[in-house]
């Protein structure tokens, strides 16, 4: 199998899976089996590609020419490979988890759910592999559309309203800003290819660079840069596996991944730092980090709190791009992996709590720790990783981002990152803290008598939910020790333009 074929295979497995799932809709066991097998196959193919890419291969396939000069092209480079690995690897975990969750919570229309899920993964991989801005934009939109039914899944008025906000903001930003930026880039450079060192230098009046960057930064609504972040909390009406994979990994990471990609391969890091065009973005991202953290503190709803935490963490990556140096890019890309691992664990824990105890609010969790020890221990591990303490993966990405801020001479940003860590402690660790140490609240006279009888036994979520949580929690620790290889790998992201042949 050549690399190019492997690339196409990786994209087509989830696509074909959609149809298989649709056909086996009436037999849930086969249907769920298919999605697990497909996720494992996809991951295997992606790993096979990763191996080639690490060996220096850069496979590339052109599918069709949409308009003269504008092609749908897939080419793999280190950054995209990283995103693809993270997304497809965590798909396996989520596929297992969703079976436990969807059945445990007795959700309806599961077939539609799995179809859209597979489509979303397919488009996330297509984004990761896209070889030019045009392709990336196309699949960026496909991802938005394919996740809409997932957000609206419950079909209640709240779900409809949430999905409306979701679609509204993502579509508005992408059409109004991103598409204009894409066409502008095409007009300026006459190409859309992702090229090392960027394609804009020499093609644009430096005075316009900040505006173009603004169109991109706000246009990539999936990166949830404030003030266009409202869709992320709104999307929390979705079933938890959706929040876990899509709104901690695939969708939001597609956003910041696009940001990284545009920063390195369209503008070029050197060009950005030379013109100082991203100076303003540093401040906006910094503000976004702090404000979102503070809002997270005020949220009592568990998933809403996690959502705001995500908004804040995503801005770390945007900050990495805006700092416009190599450490920033490395720190940002590393954070894609680290935050994904941590946040997916947190969301899956939130889902497990909902399935097992039907609790959704932080204030209701008092005393739940001893009943669900595994869940809450994993929650603590993931929280520590997000906060950025060793020996958990999150420590490294934060470290490199701090280095980047120091390299760029942004002392204020160092302070911001530190402050943010403190805020993380306050809003994340408080949750397992309450669960383990606060005394259980007196059961308020419940209308159902049976629920009032307190039981001391362990009441964990189904095994299908629990195993994935443990896996990703262990992942957080493994990543801490595996960072050497990851760092080496990320150094291969080309920052400087290739020497003219």
């Amino acid at each position, binding site marked *: 199998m050549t690399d190019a074929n492997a690339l196409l295979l990786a994209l087509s497995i989830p696509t074909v899976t959609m149809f298989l799932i649709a056909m086996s809709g009436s037999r849930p066991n086969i249907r769920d089996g298919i999605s697990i097998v497909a996720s494992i196959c996809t991951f295997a193919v992606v790993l096979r590609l990763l191996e080639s890419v690490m060996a220096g291969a850069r496979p590339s396939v052109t599918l*069709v*020419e*949409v*308009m*003269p000069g504008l092609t*749908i092209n897939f080419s793999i480079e280190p950054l995209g490979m990283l995103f693809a690995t993270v997304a497809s690897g965590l798909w396996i975990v989520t596929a297992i988890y969703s079976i436990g969750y969807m059945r445990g919570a007795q959700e309806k229309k599961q077939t539609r759910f799995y179809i859209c899920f597979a489509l979303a993964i397919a488009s996330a991989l297509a984004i990761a592999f896209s070889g030019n801005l045009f392709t990336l*934009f*196309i699949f960026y*939109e*496909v991802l938005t*559309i394919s996740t809409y*039914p997932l957000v*609206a899944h419950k*079909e209640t008025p709240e*779900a*409809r309203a949430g*999905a*409306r906000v979701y*679609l*509204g903001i993502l*579509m*508005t930003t992408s*059409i*109004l800003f991103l*598409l*204009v930026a894409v*066409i*502008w880039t*095409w*007009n300026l450079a006459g190409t859309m290819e992702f090229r090392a060192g960027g394609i804009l230098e020499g093609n644009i009046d430096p005075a316009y660079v900040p505006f173009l960057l603004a169109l991109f930064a706000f246009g990539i609504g999936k990166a949830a840069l404030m003030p266009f972040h409202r869709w992320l909390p709104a999307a929390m009406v979705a079933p938890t596996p959706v929040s876990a994979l899509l709104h901690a990994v695939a969708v939001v990471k597609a956003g910041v991944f696009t940001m990284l990609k545009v920063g390195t391969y369209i503008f070029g890091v050197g060009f950005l730092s030379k013109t100082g065009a991203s100076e303003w973005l540093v401040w906006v991202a910094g503000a976004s980090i702090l404000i979102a953290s503070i809002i997270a503190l005020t949220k009592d709803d568990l998933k809403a709190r996690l959502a705001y935490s995500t908004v804040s963490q995503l801005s770390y990556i945007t900050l990495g791009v805006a700092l416009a140096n190599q450490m920033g890019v490395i720190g940002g890309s590393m954070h894609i992996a680290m935050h994904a691992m941590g946040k997916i664990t947190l969301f899956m824990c939130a889902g497990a709590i909902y399935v097992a105890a039907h609790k959704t609010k932080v204030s209701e969790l008092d005393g739940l720790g001893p009943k669900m020890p595994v869940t809450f221990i994993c929650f603590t591990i993931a929280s520590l990783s997000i906060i950025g303490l060793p020996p958990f993966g999150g420590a490294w990405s934060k470290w490199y981002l701090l280095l980047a801020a120091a390299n760029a001479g942004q002392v204020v940003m160092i302070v911001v990152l530190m402050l943010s860590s403190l805020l993380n402690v306050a809003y994340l660790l408080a949750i397992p803290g309450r669960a383990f140490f606060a005394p259980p609240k007196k059961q308020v006279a419940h209308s159902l008598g049976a629920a009032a009888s307190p039981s001391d036994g362990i009441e964990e979520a189904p095994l299908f939910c629990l195993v994935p949580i443990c896996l990703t929690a262990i992942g957080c620790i493994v990543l801490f020790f595996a960072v050497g290889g990851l760092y080496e790998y990320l150094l291969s992201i080309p920052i400087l333009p290739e020497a003219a042949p």
Partner: protein
Amino acid sequence: MPGLIEANLPALQVVLPLVAAPICAMLGKGSRAWAFATLVAFLAFAISISLFIATYGGQVISYEMGGWAPPLGIEYRIDVLNAFVLMIVSGMAALVLPYAHRSVAAEIPAERQPFFYTAFLLCLTGLLGVAITGDAFNVFVFLEISSLSTYALVASGSWRNKRALTAAYNYLIMGTVGATFFVIGIGMIYMITGTLNMADLATRIIEHGDSRTLRMGFVFIFIGVGLKLAMFPLHLWLPNAYTFAPTAVTAFVAATATKVAVYVLLRFMFTVFGFDYEFQAETLKNVLLPVALVAMFAASLVAIFQDDLKRMLAYSSIAQIGYMLLGLAFLTHTGLMATIVHLFNHAVTKGALFMVAGCFILSAGTSSISSLRGIGRDMPWTTAAFVAGGMSLIGLPLTVGFISKWYLVQAALELGWWPVALLIMASSLLAIVYVWRVVEAAYLKPAPEGVTRREAPLSMLIPAWILVGLSIWFGVSATLTTTAASRAADVLIGSSQMLWEE
């Protein structure tokens, strides 16, 4: 014999449906009239494809009607632009007629159906004639043939809803005013030049130079055609006509009539008056540009508040016509290309959407959005077609709507017209709102109690899905349409610039 047919293809293109129309009326009740009309539409489509192939490379076919040499005789002059429009018109007819069988059977009494198909063929004749002829007065004649038959077709919706009669009457008045303006305009340029052949007109207008009469002629033609193509604020006839006409008529007319009118505008502006005619450039910039922008927003906003699906789509058509006029108002190659490619793209999209509306009417008996709640479950294929068409209307990637929008924005950015580029995008956001209202109702709201709705018959679903398929196919691989549009724009710009430079 084949050689003879081939040599006379341009004439056959128009004569075939014209002769077929009265025959159709004599075929009596039953499916015969329908089958005959369908056959004719397919033949017309085949002819237009062969004309398109013959002109795609940039050749121009000049056909002398009755052997009378132009400029005295009537000349049919076909370049890639005409051929492109001919293909849209006849192709839509060939798709709508198979669809019409069930839809018309439900909406029109059996004894009237032969007349319906007669009027349909006449309408087809008129539209094809407008697109093919190279004679200015001949344009007027064919425009009236198509308009008069459309009035009748709209009025035939009265068996379903009596308001079709007032809608048709309204259309009749407005359409006639438009036609009168148009013919007055032609009279004025005839007064100056003494010729009616378009190519001849172009050279003589240059020789004659600018004058007040020429300007008046231009304005009359501009307004007259503006009425026909529902240029905002001359669009008032359109919503009612589209809403109350039988669905097959709406699908056909919405996809073709306004497109042909836009073609007439293009032809007169750039072939007859010339690309560099200064008064025209001023008018486009000061009148057409703002009008197009207002249309994009005002009509989309109104569309958001409609409860009737057909009426909503009608208002959306007015907004989409705004896009076409906008591309024209840029007066650049890319702008013209956007307009021409959107002729095709919008025809495909809107045709599909109106067909879907017809499926809803047939099965659910209504096109009111509020009573289409939960229909996604009962009619999955129809509703999915709506979603796909709706995405094209919004202009999402992988659909034809995206291609149009891309070129439109590119044209605006090339000129450095920032605000216009942003406005184009902002107006497509309004399209999201009105499309998504339907999507939400169809999928996310529970169906009303005690309503049974069956999936539409295949004879209606297949044409609708062919159009949806086209709108996706040419959204993924748009090289054919964009190249054709680019060459057509070359023709329009090239011919006139050559003249003005001499």
